[in-house]
């Protein structure tokens, strides 16, 4: 029982990172119907920025985190303005490939900056733990869950009550109708990238907690993709539920798979998100919460 709860706690923590990344995917997709494959690059850049401001420049961790989020947002803004905006109206596939290219660019540059060593950040959590009954829980997992919950709450309030948040929802539903009301669709696009950039950087910081980042860390973000598709690519609650599902199953399989299904080999947990994705797509091709595509023939 303890083992189960412990693996669940780790899974929910990991799932919270995926949730932040999944939100970055979904917010951009909702506002401009672009699948943004640059999220891993944006995430690792954010993680490195925390390293840079915190360790290299020696700034206080929290200020370093804020600066990293700011850099992430600005970079995302520039990507949208320079690479994506001129492509509006062009085939979705072409835009997706452009984001792939930007991802490679960001990752190569960041890899070079990271260098060959593991880079640690000076986060306040480290690998400290506390006990809840018999269950040992890492501080950083709690921080991840709290941060993700806070972000979700803020986004909910933002989309529900703010003027520009409402404009973003309106634009997501019908771009032309939003234009007739004087909503500046360009601002909506830019803002969605800025939010996504900030979220990616925040997620990057959490990826770097504990064991630090190296040149391979960006691949963590790829697991947000099954989470997004699982939840339905145009649904914000779906992204969160999908991300938690992926995180929990990954955590469970980390703990139990080698014992009960040893023939699947080591590190099967890495594949679990894609296996879940495969099964869900067989049953619900538009994801758990996505909008079914209705086509008349």
């Amino acid at each position, binding site marked *: 029982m303890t083992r189960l709860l412990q693996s669940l706690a780790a899974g929910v923590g990991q799932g919270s990172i995926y949730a932040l990344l999944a939100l970055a995917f979904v917010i951009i997709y909702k506002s401009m119907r672009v699948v943004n494959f640059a999220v891993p690059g944006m995430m690792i850049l954010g993680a490195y920025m925390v390293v840079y401001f915190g360790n290299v420049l020696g700034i206080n961790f929290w200020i370093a985190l804020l600066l990293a989020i700011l850099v992430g947002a600005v970079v995302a803004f520039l990507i949208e303005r320079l690479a994506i905006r001129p492509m509006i*109206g062009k085939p979705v596939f072409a835009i997706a490939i452009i984001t792939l290219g930007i991802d490679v660019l960001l990752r190569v540059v960041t890899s070079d900056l990271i260098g060959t060593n593991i880079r640690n950040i000076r986060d306040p959590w480290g690998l400290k733990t506390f006990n809840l009954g018999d269950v040992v829980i890492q501080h950083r997992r709690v921080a991840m869950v709290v941060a993700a919950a806070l972000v979700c709450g803020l986004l909910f309030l933002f989309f529900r009550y703010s*003027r520009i948040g*409402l*404009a973003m*929802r*309106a634009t997501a*539903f*019908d*771009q*032309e*109708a*939003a*234009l*007739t*009301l*004087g*909503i*500046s669709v360009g601002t909506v696009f830019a803002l969605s990238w800025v939010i996504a950039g900030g979220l990616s950087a925040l997620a990057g910081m959490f990826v770097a907690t504990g064991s630090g980042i190296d040149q391979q860390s960006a691949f963590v973000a790829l697991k947000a993709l099954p989470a997004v598709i699982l939840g339905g690519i145009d649904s914000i609650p779906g992204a969160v539920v999908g991300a938690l599902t992926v995180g929990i199953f990954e955590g469970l399989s980390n703990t139990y798979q080698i014992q009960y299904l040893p023939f699947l080999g080591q590190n099967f947990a890495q594949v679990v998100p894609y296996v879940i994705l495969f099964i869900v797509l067989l049953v619900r091709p538009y994801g758990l919460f996505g909008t079914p595509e209705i086509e008349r023939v």
Partner: protein
Amino acid sequence: MVATLGWKTGGPGGAGRLLAVENLEVVYDEVVLVLRGVSLTVPEGKIVALLGGNGAGKTTLLRALTGLLDIHDGDITKGSISLNGKRVDNLDAPRLVRQGISQVPEGRRIFAELTVEENLRAGAHSAPTGIADRFDRVYSLFPVLAQRRKGTAGFLSGGEQQMLAIGRALMSDPRYLLLDEPSLGLAPQLVQQIRELIVEINKGGTAVLLVEQNAHMALSISEHGYVMENGRVVMDKPSAELQQDDDVKEFYLGLHKEGELQSFRHVKHYRRRKRWLS
């Protein structure tokens, strides 16, 4: 039958405050010529009707007036649009809304996932101050929307959705309201209701450009009417005269030359639509 474009007065005040389109030419995708020199004026505070069959260019004209050509790959290649003498054809959609031109798009296009109130709030995007007054005004014009304030807009009936679309456009407090086929797909009784609402809105001082296929309704409330065909304005007369015009009677009002209502017995005879210009 080409009427002259002589109607340029600015209404009783004579101040000449109007929305004017002059000799407008619009091309889609750099090849498809859709508007071939359209001129039209909407004086402040008046109702103007714009009639024409499918593909005549009515919707394109509205797109040009509200800055929506861009997203449809359309361009103004000739002519101008001016508001009170100031050129506005180079402004984008958000700026035009702030200038007081608001459009109710064809097919309503409400935000079905949002609530009625959120739809209206989105309509007030460009004018966030004094929003409470405008809510009051829209809710008093359309009491049914007030009742269903918290309801999801997608569950409204067709007529209610049309009212929501009009209400949403009114939330930006426009001086010129452009309505693209508000009677589309509505039962006759509802068309009557929409008609009265348009008159009501106009009494509040908002000029209306009413694009319609329902010529009866449009001509009965408008002061002046235009008929478009094939990208050109082919008739330009006071509505009362248009209602008496034989050709308009025949093709838009469904009346026979002798004034009796057209019936299916005569349909064959009218299969080939007469064109004023080609």
